[in-house]
């Protein structure tokens, strides 16, 4: 069941567009904000509300890399793997994260704290390498500053 809050968010999005279905990406965003990811169950609920088939909505959901169709941890770490960050040592940074968290891309730590994902260009190329943790952007990352960043997140 979609919550009252979720429905309110979805209705706001529907109000901006000429027909319901056009707000389906917004609807997925709203539900993901509340539930962290879009399970099959969530997908069906949203599809029902948006008057779409679950298959049609899934074709949209799976197209976009920031709609999560698999469970994620409490904090999603996005590692920029595009060119400027790569030049500035992103591979080394990624190895350090793998080592520190004991997970690779696409995996979640056993305690459910972090999910590690690669992400194309974060648009902060003059301050490479960069990562995002949740909604927070970190730039000019130094290897010895990594623990300090991770420790901020429970």
């Amino acid at each position, binding site marked *: 069941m979609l919550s009252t809050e979720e429905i309110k968010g979805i209705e706001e999005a529907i109000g*901006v*567009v*000429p027909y319901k*279905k*056009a*707000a*389906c*990406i*917004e609807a*997925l*965003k709203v539900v993901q904000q509340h539930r962290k990811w879009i399970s099959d169950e969530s997908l069906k609920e949203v599809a029902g509300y948006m008057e779409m088939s679950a298959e049609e909505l899934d*074709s*949209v959901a799976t*197209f*976009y*890399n*920031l*709609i999560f169709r698999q469970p994620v941890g409490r904090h999603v770490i*996005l590692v920029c*793997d*595009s*060119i*400027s960050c*790569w*030049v*500035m*040592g992103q*591979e*080394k*940074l990624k*190895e350090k994260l793998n080592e520190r968290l004991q997970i690779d891309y696409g995996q979640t730590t056993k305690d459910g704290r972090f999910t590690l994902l690669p*992400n*194309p*260009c*974060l*648009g*902060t*190329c*003059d*301050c*490479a*390498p960069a990562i*995002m943790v949740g*909604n*927070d*952007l970190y730039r000019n*990352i*130094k*290897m010895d500053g990594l623990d300090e960043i991770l420790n901020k997140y429970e």
Partner: protein
Amino acid sequence: MERPLTQHLRKDNKPLSLKEYEQVGGYQALRKVVKMSPQEVQALVKDSNLKGRGGAGFSTGLKWSFVPMNAPKPKYLVANADEMEPGTFKDRILLEQTPHQLIEGMIIAAFAIQADQSFVFLRWAYKTAAQTILQAIHEAEAAGYLGKNILGSGFDLHMHLHTGVGRYMCGEETALLNSLEGKRATPRAKPPFPQVSGLFGRPTIVNNVETLCCLPHIVSHGAEWFKKLSLTQDAGTKIYGVSGKVKKPGAWELPMGVTLRELIEEHAGGMQDGLKFRGALPGGASTDFLVEEHLDVKMDFAGVAAAGSRLGTGTVVVLDDKTCPVGFVKNLEHFFAQESCGFCTPCREGLPWIEKILDSIDNGDGRPEDLKLLEAHTKLLGPGNTFCALAPGAMEPLQSALKYFREDFEKHINEKQCTYSKIMSTAV
């Protein structure tokens, strides 16, 4: 030197409030525009020779002129703030620090085409910009710059913020429109062009953020003034950027047409100690490499084109002599292969194949015939063979790397290994 787009930015990088923006002349251009006819605004912008700053470099005034003026409402104006070209970070500055400049530019553009609805399509990663823009839209609504009967002119415009959920394809204007309609971001067939049938089948203009930010200044100071800002034929200033192993990476608003040398050596402070310049992508991931012989190329649309590349977004990514060109190109092709929308076969199948070949070469498993195979692909995935510009764009750095850094590819194949240090050692 005049820097109309960035001269009023606050030193603390915080956004200019409505009041601060008004104090430096903000919304005066809009007051002027609502007393003009839409045709006059279009003619002014056409005369100014403003060309799109998103990469294509098409005349903004000309683009607008294809919108049928007598078409019934709704008509749409969309700001393309989906800055996702790797190496590009220029619009972020404008979005985060001078949101009202963008909004004023959008209202002017909307007035010129008589649009009554507008969207800012903002990329997901720009969290600060999302807050800044939303706040600024509310301020502009409260001040009567947005909404019904703007400044008593009878002109109505509503503005909405849409934040994306990823995918490079959303930067392509017809794919962006599909995404705004709640669909997969695949490109549309053209014609019909968005000017005639765009968002929800209505006449629509999509303009880049930096392009829109030029408009208030063109209106305030005139077309001739705008042309004179530039050192060359292409009018205006440009927000250039440099990233890679230079001493002071960053972005600067400069006269259109400064040289690549000036950008790298003066503004970016030159290469880091112990490194030499090997080449650069002049305008993001989808542009051909320029090399040492091109350092004096003027960075405008015509100048970079004459050197065999494209100005693109004007944000330069530098390749140094200790970074492997094969690895560099592999990183780019990985990006393009991943971001292909999968709609047309050459792009969907070709790009991953190219990435695999480059990966083999990089890992020491390359075969001499692989270079011919890669070269063939640069034609097979080139202009005219795919549905949109993604794959041809992906071929630009590859074809130029095969030309300028051929010895590196050959060395990888002959010595069956990458002789550059596998993981780039840097400050990190």
